[in-house]
């Protein structure tokens, strides 16, 4: 093969390669785009929490004893006064028997001492007559007077003992009564955390796991949210809230802020503080249960009708905020914008944009390196 021919082949190949590369003008960057929208943007605060019933009563034991019977199950409807659970009553009945016997004994003691007093009083009257006739001396009479006084005091003491015994009997009756657990309201048994044979301890209020049962009124469901202290100043009563239960993440429950806690609490081991905010939820056909975790968007502000773009589209540098608008030829325009209110997804903007135009929203790595000279290609999912 002659050198001339080789040179011609090489030059032709080189020219073809350069021509191809020059025509393509560099590989355009693949980016995600999103259309400019128009509408009202609501400023929101995000929070998480769980669902609870508005009226929910934790049953705890006021007496110590062994559980004899549990008469209801979780999810069962109960009426006010219905027997829910019973402790073993043997000890309580015995206690009551002792108390009753104590009352009887004290009553008999009163009667005994009263009889003794009456006897001494009669003796004193007879001694008084004899003394008036001068038949007995003053010493014996005075001694008998003292005995009568002591007998009167003994009667009074016995009467106090009767009162004490009756109080003890009332306490025993109360303990016996408290060994029966009755439904405090018409409602639903939300949880039953006790089984027959277990021993319940009195006085365990506010200790985790000390609830025996939870009875709730299921007619009103609330979302109990933990709102970060940085957001609490924006939260006000009656603000609309969209609540997303974990079991129904795509179906928002509408509600309104009902109560705003006034003391910050630490949540778990996290360093930040949060406030408790309760949200009254509108009636819903979704199956919802207390304890379900949820997230919520609290609408703190409603903006005016304006252009909006995804939050990721708005970029910032020393010259201010801007977005990259994608032209039909794949070129980019840097459009300065003034950001307005924003929610989790969108940002209201004012600037030289029109609804329907496409702006670059990502990927972040590529978007951060774009310049007015860049050429881009919208990824198919977005382009379609």
């Amino acid at each position, binding site marked *: 093969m002659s050198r001339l021919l*080789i040179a011609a082949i*090489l030059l032709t190949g080189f020219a073809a*390669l350069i021509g191809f*590369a*020059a025509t393509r003008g560099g590989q355009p960057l693949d980016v995600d785009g999103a259309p400019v929208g128009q509408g009202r943007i609501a400023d929101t605060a995000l929070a998480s929490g769980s669902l609870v019933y508005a009226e929910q009563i934790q049953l705890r034991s006021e007496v110590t004893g062994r559980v004899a019977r549990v008469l209801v199950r979780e999810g069962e409807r109960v009426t006010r006064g219905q027997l829910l659970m019973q402790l073993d009553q043997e000890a309580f009945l015995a206690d009551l028997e002792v108390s009753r016997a104590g009352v009887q004994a004290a009553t008999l003691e009163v009667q005994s001492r009263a009889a003794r007093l009456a006897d001494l009083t009669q003796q004193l009257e007879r001694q008084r007559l004899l003394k008036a006739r001068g038949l007995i001396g003053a010493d014996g009479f005075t001694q008998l007077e003292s005995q009568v006084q002591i007998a009167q005091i003994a009667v009074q003491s016995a009467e106090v003992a009767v009162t004490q015994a009756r109080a003890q009997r009332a306490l025993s009756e109360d303990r016996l009564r408290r060994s029966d657990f009755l439904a405090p309201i018409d409602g639903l048994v939300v949880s039953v955390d006790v089984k027959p044979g277990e021993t319940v301890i009195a006085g365990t209020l506010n200790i985790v796991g000390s609830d025996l049962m939870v009875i709730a009124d299921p007619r009103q469901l609330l979302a109990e949210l933990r709102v970060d202290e940085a957001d609490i100043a924006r939260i006000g009563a009656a603000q609309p809230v969209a609540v997303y239960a974990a079991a129904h993440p795509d179906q928002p429950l509408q509600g309104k802020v009902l109560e705003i806690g006034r003391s910050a609490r630490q949540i778990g081991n996290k360093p930040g503080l949060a406030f408790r905010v309760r949200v009254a939820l509108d009636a819903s056909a979704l199956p919802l249960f207390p304890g379900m975790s949820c997230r919520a968007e609290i609408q703190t502000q409603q903006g005016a009708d304006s252009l909006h773009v995804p939050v990721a589209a708005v970029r910032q540098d020393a010259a201010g905020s801007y977005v990259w608008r994608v032209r039909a030829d794949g070129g980019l325009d840097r459009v300065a914008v003034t950001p307005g209110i924003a929610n989790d997804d969108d940002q209201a903007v004012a600037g030289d944009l029109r609804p329907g135009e496409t702006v670059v929203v990502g990927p972040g790595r590529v978007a951060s390196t774009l*310049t007015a000279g*860049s050429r881009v290609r919208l990824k198919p999912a977005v382009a379609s």
Partner: protein
Amino acid sequence: MNALRTVLIDPFLAPAEAFRAVRERPASSGWALLAIGGVAALSVYALLGGASPEWIVSQQLLEVGELKPDELAVTRTALLDVAPYAVHLGAVSQVLVLPIFCALLAAVYLLAERLLGRSRQRYAAWFALAALSMMPLLVNALGLIVLSLLQSGDKPLQLANYASLNALMLGLSPGERGQGLAAALNLFYLWSIGLAAIGSRAYTGYDWGRCVLLAALPYLGFFGIWAATV
């Protein structure tokens, strides 16, 4: 003049003769390295000469892996500090890296020669072969200069890989899996491997299969390991 023609023209038009000549006079391959390094340095100036530091940094960041926002800010700041000198550094590195690359290639060729047969060439001869086999990179750099002159304004850094597998066929974006490897696999490397195979046959007299294997071995090793990690 003949020596210059042997190392600058013959590798393209009569490669076997060129390799036989440099085996006898390995030092003449230095002219090839100088020419490749010089044109490659010029191509860096052509590509990035008029670019602003911000543009250079944005193009460099495209080649960096995925970073968190705070890491991105730190990296951007660090790159901006170096950006005014980036063009000069790039040009100098083109000149300096080339002999190192050739030295590594020569070492692999020397080892492969002993593994594949009875031929025993000197290291200097293999270095000269490696240097001459790099001559397609001179064409690559010339092409980059032409492309840079054809484009106005800031040029994307990816233009330097205009003859890569990615630019010619795949079209992967920065950040996509395998984009870095596809951008590094260059058409001119195939040409270099072809030249090295011709040269090794001229040196050793081995059959074509062993010569192609010997020539491709360093590239297979390098890109093979890279491909395994993608």
